């Protein structure tokens, strides 16, 4: 049973991988495109995610393998498999860089304006360094434990319902064609995290068990409902014009509350949400380290690789320090994300459809 996970544990892993920084990506870019129908865009993006989850499950369940790199090597050939695995490693590193950088930026903007960005980056990188070299089992225990904090975090959103103006949701569908789909394309980035299923499938014992698919589906449903709810709250709390000059609307909503003694509700929220972001970033750091371990044919020790991972993330996050670089990096990341979440899984599924060869371990 060592290094194997159950479907329930898979559910928690996927949930933690997807919930995290995404909540801060829901900003003016989405609302300028899809306007008051943004919540429909989120549902469309959720449906797209569900299709991709089905695609990934379709081809991974057919084979027996212990890690995805060996699947890729067997399915394609040794060189191409290593190449795609390296691509995913780069992708996981980029996700980490982006999360670490954006987390530092958000903390600096809302809570700690005088703290140097470097210090905030180092704090996150230390937690990445500490967790990335461990086994899947310890990660799974951590995620299961984190689900308690997730539940508490959800309670935070309930008071947000008290001063919503439902009129901001209407009129429905009164807009340009394809605006909804464009919005869905923008918001699809926050659903990224499901592509880790491709790698976690290697740890699942009985891959053709339908409960595995069910677990992934339920994680996706939970995500879609959650993000739809968040978008609903944001749309109904701000007038469209006010949304344009609010950088992270969800934090602004929490900042506007005052309950008795608690004056800065947003500090409390950010403090708790930090756990969610960290738990999603260590998900990627774990996968990046494991991938590097397998690509280098297990020549390097795992903990050395976790230092390499942390060093790359740190230098990357420090490098993107002005708005030009950030925008370039975000565009680059968008393409990387498209490749990792849609194009490669689809190509692999097509390849599987036409070949029926056994994978040798």
């Amino acid at each position: 049973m060592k290094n194997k996970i159950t479907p329930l544990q898979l559910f928690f892993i996927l949930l933690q991988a997807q919930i995290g920084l995404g909540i801060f990506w829901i900003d003016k870019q989405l609302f300028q495109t899809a306007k008051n129908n943004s919540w429909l865009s989120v549902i469309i993006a959720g449906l797209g995610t569900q299709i991709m989850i089905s695609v990934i499950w379709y081809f991974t369940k057919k084979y027996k393998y212990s890690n995805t790199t060996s699947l890729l090597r067997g399915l394609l050939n040794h060189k191409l498999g290593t190449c795609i695995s390296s691509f995913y490693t780069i992708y996981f590193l980029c996700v980490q860089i982006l999360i670490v950088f954006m987390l530092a930026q958000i903390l600096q903007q809302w809570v700690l304006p005088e703290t140097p960005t470097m210090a905030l980056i180092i704090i996150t990188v230390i937690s990445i360094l500490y967790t990335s070299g461990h086994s899947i089992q310890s990660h799974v225990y951590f995620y299961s434990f984190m689900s308690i904090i997730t539940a508490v975090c959800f309670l935070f959103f309930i008071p947000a319902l008290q001063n919503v103006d439902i009129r901001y949701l209407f009129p429905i569908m009164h807009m340009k064609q394809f605006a909804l789909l464009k919005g869905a394309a923008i918001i699809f980035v926050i659903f990224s995290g499901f592509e880790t299923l491709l790698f976690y499938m290697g740890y699942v014992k009985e891959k053709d068990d339908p409960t595995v698919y069910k677990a992934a589906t339920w994680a996706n449903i939970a995500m879609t409902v959650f993000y739809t709810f968040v978008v609903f709250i944001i749309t109904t709390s701000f007038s469209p014009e006010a949304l344009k000059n609010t950088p992270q609307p969800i934090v602004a909503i929490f900042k506007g509350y005052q309950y008795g003694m608690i004056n800065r509700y947003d500090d409390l929220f950010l403090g708790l949400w930090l756990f969610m972001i960290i738990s999603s970033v260590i998900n990627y750091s774990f996968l990046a380290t494991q991938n590097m371990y397998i690509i280098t044919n297990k020549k390097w020790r795992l903990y050395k690789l976790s230092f390499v991972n942390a060093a790359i993330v740190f230098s990357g996050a420090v490098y993107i320090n002005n708005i030009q670089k950030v925008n370039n990096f975000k565009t680059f990341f968008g393409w990387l994300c498209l490749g990792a979440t849609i194009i490669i899984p689809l190509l692999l599924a097509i390849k599987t459809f036409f070949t029926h060869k056994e994978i040798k371990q």
Partner: protein
Amino acid sequence: MMKKMSLTILCALFLAGCWDQDSLKEIRMPTILSFDSHDKHDISGRALIRVPIGTSKGEEKMTNEQIAVTGNNLLDCYNKIDQRSSEKTNYSQVQVMLLGEDYAKKHIKNFIDSYLSLNKSSYNAQVAITEGKASDIMQKRKKNTPLLDEYLTNLVETGIQLNMTPNTTSKIVHNQLHDPGYDVVIPYIKETKQEDILALAGVALIHDGKYTGETLDTEQTELLLAFMKQYGEKMWIPEKKELETMPFLINKVYSEYNVNEKTATADNIDITYNLTMHINVNEQSDHLLNTPKKLKAANKKLSKYYTAQAEKLFSKLHESSCDALGIGRSLIAYHNDLWCKLKDDKDYYQKISVTPKINITIVNTTMTR
């Protein structure tokens, strides 16, 4: 073990709180800000700070200190306040922001935007407009009253709790000022002539991010708030002579409006606004409402009286084209075709004629409580 130890020490070195700590003795936190227009383009600002003074008995007493500055824009004023005060200024505890009449007539929008863009600004600061200059009100000091900042804060907050004024935190005002289908109303603070004290005197009507110069008195404000479904503990006392014996409390309010789409044109949209109030009358012993006939008559009288009041209210809103109820927002949401004809005009409220109708039903009567 060594690895863990070194990591812990490394973490401790980078604890983020150290950079951002603001110890109380090193910062000054204004509780009231006020702004007036000064000459043509300049702005004069005032910040009221609470400072402790030691008394001869050894106990600490609080007193208010004011910093008055003049600058050519708002950020300049904030900068100058920083320069004049001996310590760092932190705006996170601002409770009330007073705007002078003249200043509010120029731009409220800029003011709110620049306040919210300040580092550590408070989203919960209440905004209010004063009669005359805000700095005059700031300089009022009575001997036996509590500190001015405490007095002003309590004045506005009690007004909200008793539903005498709407809740206008900087966040809410910012939100509604940036809404094309909404106009905000802001509490109006006035100095009463006889007793020389500060009091709430209804609300100021804002249109297009500027104070129109028109105000509603307290009765009209309460009626407006009932239309906004903000009602509560406040006892309503009709002013009309024959109704004076029927003070009442509101139990429940139902409101609905009807847009007459058939007769609607680009220049005139008819809206009927119905408000049903379930009330609890406080009976007087010499005017008992003990028969169904008397109750019916009372219902009718009250309804008629308040419908007439509401007509006055809406004609006043119409004059200053202040869409305080957000009818434009409702049109955007539910009658978008009509709104498309109106939306280019900032004074769209001029083209909307609202016919209010108030139905009052007495659901309960009490003599003593």
